[in-house]
C-alpha cells in the first residue's frame, strides 16, 4: 500500500477510498464471473430438473405421449400409499442402507487399524485395497455374477467340494438382497478404510506415547485416543455412504433388475422401472420425490458437518 502524502490528507484519503471501492467492486465481479460457468451448469442440469421432477409428480404423464400432461394433484402420492411394491422397495432400501453402512463402517474401521500398522508389506496393500473402489460397477457385478454362477462359479465349485449346494445365488429369494448389499460393501469398504486411516495418521504420536507412560493398553489407546480423534471423519463417511446406499441403483439394476419377485427392488430401481419401462413419469417422479424428502434429512446433517470444519 502506498503511504498517503502529508499535504491534502483528506482529498488523498477520499481518492484512495474511491479507487479501493472501484477495485473492490471490480474484483467482486470478476470473482462472480469466474464461478458463473459452474453455477450455470448446475442450475440448468440439476436444479431445474429437480424442481421440474417435483412438478411432474403432480401430473399424469407418459413417455409414449410426452405432450399429453394432466394435472392430478396428489393422486400419485395417494397411489404410493396403496402400492405394496413401493412399501416393499422402501423397506428394502432401508435394509440395504442400514446393512451396507454398518458393515462398511465396521469393516472399514478394522481395515484402517490393520493397514495403519507399521509392518513390512502394508504399503502396497494400502494402494491395492483401493482397486474395487475404482472398478466400474458393471464390472463388479460381472465379477460377482461369475463367482456365484451356477455350475461353473468358483463359489459353487468350492461349495460342491464340501457337499454344499450349487445354485444361482442372485436368483434366490433369501440371498438376493444380502448379496446386492454385499456388493456395495465390497465396493466401498476400501474408501471408508483409507479415509479413516488418513485421519488416524494425523493423530499426533505424542498422545499415544503419553498414554503408554500412563500404562494404557492397546484397547484403551484405541478407545480414548484413536476413536475420539476420528469421530468427525467417521460421521462424514457414515453420512456420505448412507446417501450413496440410499440412492443405490446401478449395481442392483444390473445384477438382478429388482428381482427375483421384487426381492431386490429398492427406491432407485423402482423409479427407473416406473419411468423407463412402465413409462409412468408422474408416478416415478412421485417415488423420486419421496426419496428426495428422505434424503434431505441426511443432506442437512452432512452440510452441518462440513460447515463445522
Amino acid at each position: 500500500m502506498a503511504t498517503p502524502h502529508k499535504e491534502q490528507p483528506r482529498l488523498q484519503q477520499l481518492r484512495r477510498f474511491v479507487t479501493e471501492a472501484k477495485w473492490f467492486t471490480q474484483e467482486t465481479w470478476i470473482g462472480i464471473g469466474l464461478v458463473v460457468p459452474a453455477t450455470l451448469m448446475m442450475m440448468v442440469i440439476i436444479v431445474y430438473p429437480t424442481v421440474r421432477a417435483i412438478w411432474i409428480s403432480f401430473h399424469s404423464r407418459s413417455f409414449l405421449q410426452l405432450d399429453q400432461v394432466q394435472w392430478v394433484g396428489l393422486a400419485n402420492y395417494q397411489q404410493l400409499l396403496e402400492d405394496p411394491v413401493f412399501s416393499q422397495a422402501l423397506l428394502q432400501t432401508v435394509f440395504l442402507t442400514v446393512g451396507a453402512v454398518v458393515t462398511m463402517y465396521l469393516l472399514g474401521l478394522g481395515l484402517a487399524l490393520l493397514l495403519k500398522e507399521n509392518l513390512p508389506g502394508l504399503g502396497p496393500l494400502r494402494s491395492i485395497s483401493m482397486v474395487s473402489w475404482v472398478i466400474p460397477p458393471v464390472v463388479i457385478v460381472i465379477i460377482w455374477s461369475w463367482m456365484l454362477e451356477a455350475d461353473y462359479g468358483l463359489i459353487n465349485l468350492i461349495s460342491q467340494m464340501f457337499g454344499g449346494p450349487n445354485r444361482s445365488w442372485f436368483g434366490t429369494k433369501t440371498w438376493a438382497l444380502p448379496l446386492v448389499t454385499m456388493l456395495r460393501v465390497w465396493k466401498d469398504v476400501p474408501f471408508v478404510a483409507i479415509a479413516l486411516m488418513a485421519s488416524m495418521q494425523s493423530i499426533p504420536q505424542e498422545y499415544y506415547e503419553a498414554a503408554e507412560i500412563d500404562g494404557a493398553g492397546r484397547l484403551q489407546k484405541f478407545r480414548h485416543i484413536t476413536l475420539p480423534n476420528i469421530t468427525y471423519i467417521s460421521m462424514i463417511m457414515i453420512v456420505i455412504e448412507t446417501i450413496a446406499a440410499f440412492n443405490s441403483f446401478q449395481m442392483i439394476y444390473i445384477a438382478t433388475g429388482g428381482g427375483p419377485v421384487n426381492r431386490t427392488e429398492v427406491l432407485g430401481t423402482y423409479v427407473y422401472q416406473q419411468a423407463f419401462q412402465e413409462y409412468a413419469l408422474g408416478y416415478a417422479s412421485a417415488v423420486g420425490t419421496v426419496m428426495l424428502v428422505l434424503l434431505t434429512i441426511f443432506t442437512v446433517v452432512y452440510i452441518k458437518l462440513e460447515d463445522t470444519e
Partner: protein
Amino acid sequence: MAAPSKTVQDGRTGIVGRFDAFIGEDNSIKHALGVYGALTLYFIWFLVPILWLALSTIKTGSIIQADELIIIPSIEQITFANYEMVLTNPQFQTMFFNSIVISVSTTILTLIAGVLGAYSLSRFSYPGRKSLLIAFMATKMLPPALILIPFFIMMYTLNLVNSYTGIILAHCVRALPLALWLLKGFFDDIPEALDEAARIDGCSHLKVLYHVIVPLAKPGIAVAAFYTFVTSWNDFLFVSILSQGDSTRTLPFGLYLFQSANTVNWGATLTAATLTAIPSIVFFALVQKYIVKGLASGGMHGS
C-alpha cells in the same frame, strides 16, 4: 503414505529393522501375526474375485466352464483368443472410442469450469459465496433417478438424445460439485501471498491462475481429473437412457447389454469386463499417492 515410523533406535533399517523395532516395542510377534492373519482373510474376500476374473480371461472356453475347480490352468489351457476376439470386435472398438471421447471431453470441460469456479470460491469474497459452496455439495446428494426423468425430457426436446453432447453434459454435472470442492481444498492450501505478489507485478487474474495457481495445484488437478474421468467412464445410468444406438454407446452399458443377452459366452464377457476396468485402474495408479490428501480435504465419492 507411510505410517510415521517410530523405529530405528538401534540404527537398523529396512524390513529387518522395522520388524525388530516393532516386536521389541510391543513384545509380541503374536500381534504381527494377528494383523497379517486378519488382512489375509480380508484380502481373500477382496482380491480372489478380481484375480479369478483376470485368470478366467486367459483360459480356453472349455476350461472356463469346467465343472471342476482348475485354479492354475496348464500351458495348453491358456489362450489369448478371448482378447483377440474382443479387441477385434468392431462393436467393442466403437464403444471403446465412444467411452474415450465422452470421458476425456467430460474431464476437460469439468476441469475448466471447476478450476475457474474453485479459484473464485477460494480467492474472492462476494455475497452468496458460502451458500453457493454448500449448494454445490448439496446437489451431489440428489437422487440421480429423480433428475433423470426431466433431464431426459429436456434432452429429448433439445434433440440431444443419442448425442455425445447430452451424455457429456450429464457427466460433467455429476462430477463437477466434487471436483470443485477438491480443487478449492487444494487452492486454499496455496499461500495467498503468492498470487498477491503476481497481481502487484501486473498479472491479470487469469494469468495468476495460469502461472501461479495451476502449476502449484497440479496434484489436486490430477485428483479432480481422475475423479471426473472415473465418474464418466464408469457411468451406466445416464448412458442407458441417453444412448439409443451403437453410435453413442459406451463400454459399461454395452457390457450390460452383452452380458444380459449372452450369458453363455463367459470368456468374451469376462475379457470385455477386464478391458473396461483397465483405464480407470491405470489412471488410479497414476494419481493414487495424491488421493489420500484429496480424501482428507473433503469427502470424495463415486456412486
